[in-house]
Structure formats: structure tokens, C-alpha cells
């Protein structure tokens, strides 16, 4: 057993998961610093989403460790991982259609997360102020009373980002945040991401290379469940192996 590595916010080492013998993630190791923006790129089926699933506990690892602030995440349940400071945005906007924008955000407010806590939860000024501040940030200030199902695709993506923002996670994981967005929406989202990454680490999966160049501190290229290359955007772009499996297409 390796001693907890406290130098990094997130230390993934030797992570492996196999589905019926197929290794979707194979002996993967990478480290994320505090306040770092890490982008994971790679061809389809490289295991990008599976890595996020493993970190947030949705998929159980076959082998390896995931240390977050010195805590072993592979032994925790999903809600405990969230409570320890990891937030996850899904690929398709995952919001509550039947609730209003306000209620969607309020549910993510990190208080009253037990059964009795939720029963006793009061919508006080602290909650209202925070919801309104976040709604402002995600461009939904005027739509707080709207049922979430009536939002546009881009607005739904923003709403889910807002739901994560209100949790104030130390590590934020975003799975293709600009997929399916129009060009102006992408621009606004990049702007949004640049404001919300202040004071936290972010792992982003993205295919849009322009977007990646704009935000990434460091890029990890995955291929067949393994790290193919890692480094700054320029280093990675110049790597012939990366060009061959991913960028060349």
C-alpha cells in the first residue's frame, strides 16, 4: 500500500477497470494539482468518461488507488465522494425537468443532505442569495421560476454547471461541457468556465480543440485506456503518436 500522497489534490495510480476481461482503463496514473485545469482528450472509446466514472464512484475500480486530499475514494460511496469535495457534470444535461430552475439549484445547495435534514430544510436568505448569485453567473437570472424542461439545450448545460457550482467542489469534473452547443453558446460557456474555475481544480473532457487550447493548463491524452502523452497543449500537439491516433483525424 502506497502512503497517501498529499502533494497533489488528486492522485490516480495504477487504476484499472475491466469489463468482462476488456480493460477500459489500464494501469492509469495521473496527478492533478490544486487550481489546475486538466483536459483529457482522446479518441472515442479511449476510456475518458470511464475515468470520471471511476473517480466519482459510479464505476468500481478493479485495481489501483484514487487519492483525493489524502483520502482513498475507491472505498467511499458516491454521496460520500461528493461530500468530500468532488463534483461531476454528466455528458448529457442531467437536470430535474419537473422542478423550477430555482429548485434545481436549491437541491444542490450543500445543506440538509440527510433525510431529516431535508425535512427540516428552510429556504433562508443564505440559500436564496446563493441561488440568485449562481443563477446570475450561469445567465439564468431571469428564468428562476421557469420549469427546467422548458430551457434550451445550452441553458440546461449551464444549469447543470450551476448546480455543481453551488456545491462549491474542490475538484470539478466536466464531461464535454460544450457538446451540442451553438457557437455563441460555446463562447459564453468558455467565459463561464473561466470564471468558475477560480480557486478549484477542474478536469474537463472535451473534443473541441479550440476550446481545449483556451482553457487547458495541462493535457492528458488517453488511448485504449492508457496515457499516450501528457504535458502542455503545445507539447502534446507536437507528439507524433498523438497526431496519429487523435489529432490527425
Amino acid at each position, binding site marked *: 500500500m502506497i502512503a497517501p500522497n498529499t502533494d497533489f489534490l488528486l492522485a490516480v495510480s495504477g487504476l484499472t477497470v475491466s469489463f468482462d476481461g476488456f480493460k477500459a482503463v489500464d494501469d492509469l496514473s495521473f496527478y492533478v494539482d490544486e487550481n489546475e485545469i486538466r483536459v483529457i482528450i482522446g479518441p472515442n472509446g479511449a476510456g475518458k468518461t470511464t475515468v470520471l466514472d471511476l473517480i*466519482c464512484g*459510479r464505476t468500481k475500480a478493479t485495481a489501483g488507488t484514487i487519492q483525493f486530499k489524502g483520502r482513498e475514494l475507491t472505498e467511499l*460511496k*458516491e*454521496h460520500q465522494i*461528493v*461530500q468530500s469535495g468532488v*463534483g*461531476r457534470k*454528466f455528458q448529457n444535461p*442531467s*437536470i*430535474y*425537468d*419537473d*422542478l*423550477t430552475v*430555482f*429548485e*434545481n439549484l*436549491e*437541491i*444542490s445547495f*450543500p445543506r*440538509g*443532505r*440527510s*433525510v431529516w435534514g*431535508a*425535512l*427540516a*430544510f*428552510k*429556504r433562508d436568505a443564505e440559500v436564496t442569495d446563493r441561488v440568485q448569485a449562481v443563477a446570475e453567473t450561469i445567465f439564468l437570472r431571469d428564468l*428562476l*421560476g421557469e420549469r427546467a424542461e422548458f430551457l434550451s439545450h445550452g441553458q440546461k448545460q449551464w444549469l*447543470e454547471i450551476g*448546480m455543481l457550482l453551488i*456545491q462549491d467542489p474542490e475538484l470539478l469534473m466536466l464531461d464535454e461541457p460544450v457538446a451540442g452547443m451553438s457557437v455563441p453558446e460555446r463562447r459564453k460557456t468558455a467565459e463561464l468556465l473561466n470564471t468558475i474555475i477560480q480557486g478549484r481544480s477542474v478536469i474537463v473532457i472535451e473534443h473541441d480543440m479550440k476550446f481545449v487550447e483556451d482553457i487547458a493548463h495541462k493535457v492528458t491524452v488517453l488511448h485504449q485506456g492508457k496515457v499516450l502523452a501528457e504535458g502542455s497543449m503545445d507539447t502534446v500537439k507536437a507528439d507524433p503518436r498523438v497526431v496519429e491516433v487523435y489529432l490527425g483525424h
Partner: protein
Amino acid sequence: MVNGTHFLNRRELLGVLVLAALILVVLPLTLDGFRLNLVGKYLTYAFVALGLVLCWGNAGILSLGQGIFFGLGGYCMAMYLKLQASTPEATKIQSTPGIPDFMDWNQITALPWFWEPFNNLAFTLLAIILVPSLFAFIIGAAMFKRRVGGVYFAIITQAIAAILTILIVGQQGYTGGINGITDLRTLQGWDIRTDAAKTILYFVCALLLIGALLLAQLVRRSKLGRLLVAMRDKEDRVRFSGYDVANFKIFVFCFAAALAAVGGAMFTLQVGFMSPSFVGIVPSIEMVIFAAVGGRLSLFGAIYGTLLVNFAKTSLSESFPELWLLGLGGLFIAVVMAFPNGLAGLYASYVEPAFLNLIAAVKTRIARVASPIPDGARGAPAE
């Protein structure tokens, strides 16, 4: 708009008042004792329907075994009442006096240990709530912690309902078997069989139902209520927002069970017996139909749906006993296919708008008649 935290809005308050007026004033004044007792029996099913609105409508957990909890509540009450009716004097012709008659018929010579505490009324009242809740907790913890849900959960609840029925029927000496626990007479010496007692019990039942409605509304209006809706929609999103989803499902399942149990206990008191025929699959599914017809998303709808289906059942099954079950099945299919939100949904989309239009029209008319000033100068009343 965004401030949905008020316990009851004006419309819901009006709904409670209308319901209270109906079951506390109109029905008692217009119905004879026999019919009123029947309505009282229907109202006991409405407790189950209320629980189903939260459990099925809001949280999306379909239980086809609510008869389990209705029955357990009813049996707890019946055990107490049976012991009251089994004094040594009243049972002196038995070979073992002082125990319930059916035990004597089954060659049991001493009161079983789990019957003993039911000599105590306070224990019984607690047990009515706690025994079914605990049972629901065990089922819920076993299923929801393993992430069993949807159709599988529904089938398992149905299987448990069937198992419990078989158990009760099989253990005749301890449970009264297929006949159930019958010949119940007094509650702390107060004869529950008289007309006056039945009327009082009807009012107790109606008041408890309104209490249950308000309690259910309180849960729905809390953040927990919104979480249930959120879970029905995107369970993973709730889980990855830091909530242990299984605990919330267990809570709502236990809550629905406790409501059903209160209904069961009131059933025993008003009807005067409890038998396995209220525990099994058919009554459990009937209870789901009551909630579906009334509207699984509306607490009021569930109560009115229960009353209407039962009125229909009583009047139709007298004339066409064979056709009734088929009719009930057809009704269920029709509701699910054509009006998934039941009567409450129909009311909200057709009756209420028409009604509001009518009120608005009348208001404008009155305003016009009352003041000679033309409309434009005053503006029509809001709404």
C-alpha cells in the same frame, strides 16, 4: 413564483376546507348510519392512497403491496380488540378460558408471547405505526440499498403480500386463519358496535384522514418532497449531488406504510374485523387503482378517487358481481393509457380553467353593473 415553500397555498387551503366540509358535514348530514359507516370504510383506503401519492406519484416507487401495511395496522388493532373480547368470563365455555376463541378451536392452550403486549392500549397504538414501518424499513433497506427498483420492486412487494397472506392463513391458531380476527366488541370497555360508536369512529377516521393529508402535504412541501421528484427524474444526478438516494426511498416507503397502517387500524375499528383478504395481491392492486383513478400526483385526487371507485364498486358489484373486477381492470388500463394524471389531472386541465373563466366573467359583469364608469377607466380585476 420561486417561493414555493408555503405549506398550503390559497387554492390548497380551499381544497382542504372543501374536503373537510364534505366528509365532516355534508356526508354525515345526508347519509344514514349504514351508508356513513360504508364511507368510513372507504376513507380508510384513502390513507393508503395518500401514501401512494408520495411513494408512487412523487418518488416513482410503485408498491403493489400496500395491503401488507394496511393489514398489519389492522391486525395490530384487531389483536388488541380480540383480547378485550376474550375475558375469562366471556370465554368460560372454552377448554382454555381467557384466550381468543380461534386459538381454543386450534388446541392452543396459552396466549402466544407476541399476543401478550397487545393487552395494553398504548403499546397497541404504537405498534400500529411501528410494526408496519419497521417491516417497510426492512423491505426498503434490503431493496433500495441494493438499487432494486422499478418493476422488480413492484413484483417483490406483490410477492411479499402473497407470502404474508399465506402465512396468516396457514398459522390459523395464532392469526385466526382465513376468517381473520372476528367478533370484536369493545375498546377499553366502550362498545364499538353501536350506531353511536360507529358515528364517532367515522368522525375520528375523517379527522385523522385530514391530519394525514396535512402531514403528507408537509412532506411534499419540504425539500425532501422536491428531492423525491428529482430522484424520480434523474436519480444519478441526485446521488452525485451528495445524497444517499436509498435513504430517501426508504423514508417515503416507510411513511406510506405508516399511513396505510393507520387506515388499516381504523378499518378494523369501523368494520369490526380484520382478515387476510385485505392483505393480499388483489386489495393491494385495488389500492393502487384508487390512487391512479384519483390522480397519483394529487393528494386530494387520491381521496376523491378512492371514494368514487368504492361507491362505484359497491353499487355495481351488487348488480353485476362478475363484471366488477373486469370493469376495475378496464378502468385502470383506461386511466393509465388516456389520463395518466387521473381525475385530478382532468380537473386541473379542464374543469378549473373553465371555472376560473366563469368567475372572471362574473366579476367583470358585476364590476360593469356596479359602476357606470366604462371598463377602460378601471381595468378588469386581476386573474
